[in-house]
């Protein structure tokens, strides 16, 4: 699996040796966190045994989960029971030592935009232990009706095709829709109205505000040949240039891919339904059938923790089988002006 970090560590000034040591612990489900320029690791199982002091230090921090591409209604060979694997993902989330404050679903909730599929998704997610779920639609959610059904059920309070923003503990979240009005031969698209709204939405925010953008199709050119990109995302990112920390969370490609470009981290999540091939390794990007015992190593959820005091972000991908070594990490840069003093040699 291509779950390696594709960023340029040298430019970021991160202590390479420490980072690589942390990567070696990846398979055990370890949370690596950069604190004051020093890498600290927490085994997921240890978090439950943390001291009061440690837990107090974690308080006021923000943790949430991203799930994606549940494709309720899909029933072909790659996974005949996508509702079952979604339930397993929910069980995994419910087993976290600390319940996430909310969950982001980055689209393709359903496979065919059917009412019964939206119903099943709604019912299934009720078992998830969290206060709120935020959604953005995938192209499979807006078939036949320009997204009307999706917006009625999951887009209350959103603008236009279903975009919106909200704040949690000082972090500004922006949910975007890039699966509507797609043009022949094109990629995902945000469109003029949405771009204008983004510019206006972030205009008055301080540059130190951490930003999380979430949308279905990747907002960078992950693999344009297969439509894995967004035609006009550069304009959106231009409006976010002033911010010290921007994290972009996407779905659509049913595998983990990461990229860091300056102050922006791009990260895609696994699907809870079925895997897709890595770029260029198959004739097309459709559902990929794997041996039954391998399926759950390629499906999963993403845990995201913001350590507000240090302004760091940790992203941990957890496969459903919990045993494979495909967890991955990203360490965001702290506020840029103090960066050079925080990093060791």
């Amino acid at each position: 699996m291509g779950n390696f970090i594709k960023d340029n560590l040298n430019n970021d000034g991160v202590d390479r040796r420490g980072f690589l040591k942390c990567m070696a612990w990846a398979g055990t489900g370890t949370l690596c966190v950069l604190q004051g320029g020093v890498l600290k690791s927490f085994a997921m199982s240890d978090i439950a045994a943390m001291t009061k002091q440690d837990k107090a230090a974690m308080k006021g921090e923000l943790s949430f989960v991203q799930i994606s591409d549940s494709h309720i209604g899909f029933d072909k060979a790659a996974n005949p029971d996508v509702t079952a694997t979604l339930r397993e993902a929910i069980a995994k989330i419910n087993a976290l030592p600390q319940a996430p404050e909310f969950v982001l679903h980055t689209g393709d909730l359903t496979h065919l935009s059917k009412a019964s599929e939206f119903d099943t998704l709604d019912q299934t997610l009720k078992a998830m232990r969290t206060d709120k779920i935020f959604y953005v639609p995938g192209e499979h959610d807006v078939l036949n009706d320009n997204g009307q059904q999706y917006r009625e059920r999951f887009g209350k309070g959103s603008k236009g095709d279903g975009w919106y923003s909200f704040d949690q503990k000082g972090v500004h979240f922006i949910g975007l829709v890039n699966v509507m009005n797609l043009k022949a031969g094109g990629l995902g698209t945000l469109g003029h109205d949405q771009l204008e709204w983004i510019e206006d939405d972030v205009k008055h925010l301080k540059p130190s505000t951490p930003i999380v953008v979430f949308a279905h199709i990747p907002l960078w050119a992950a693999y344009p040949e297969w439509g894995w990109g967004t035609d006009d995302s550069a304009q959106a990112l231009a409006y976010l240039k002033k911010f010290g920390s921007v994290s972009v969370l996407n779905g659509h490609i049913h595998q983990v891919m990461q990229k860091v470009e300056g102050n922006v981290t791009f990260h895609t999540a696994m699907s809870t339904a079925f895997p897709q091939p890595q770029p260029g390794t198959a004739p097309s990007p459709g559902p990929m059938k794997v041996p039954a015992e391998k399926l759950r190593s390629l499906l999963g959820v993403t845990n995201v923790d913001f350590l507000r005091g240090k302004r760091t972000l940790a992203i941990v991908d957890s496969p459903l089988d919990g045993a494979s070594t495909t967890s991955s990490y990203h360490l965001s840069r702290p506020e840029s002006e103090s960066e050079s003093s925080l990093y060791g040699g």
Partner: protein
Amino acid sequence: MMKGILSRTVLSAALLGTLGWAAEIHAKNVTPAADEKPSAIEIKIDNFSFMPQDTTVAAGTTITWVNRDDVPHTVVSTNGKFKSKALDTDDKFAFTFSEPGTYEYFCSVHPKMTAKVIVK
């Protein structure tokens, strides 16, 4: 005796002639003769492609698209002339091309899938 053989021969010949005639009728409906163009064509959708990608037909031809892929696709012309609903696996969409011209179309769910129909 001769009369019997003759009559049986005639009967057989007539029968064979009838069969041949029936076979010709049947063949006409399945395989067009060289000087005829088919009035119905099928385009298969599979592996995120329209197959064939370029199709040339005579005006008046009906094209039927069949989705054999395991994800839904749509058939949407770029000039607004035709637009299917989302086609699940084994679903079909048909359109009769009465006017000559070039009709570019794509899948609105996976817009990298493009193709065209040339109507003569």
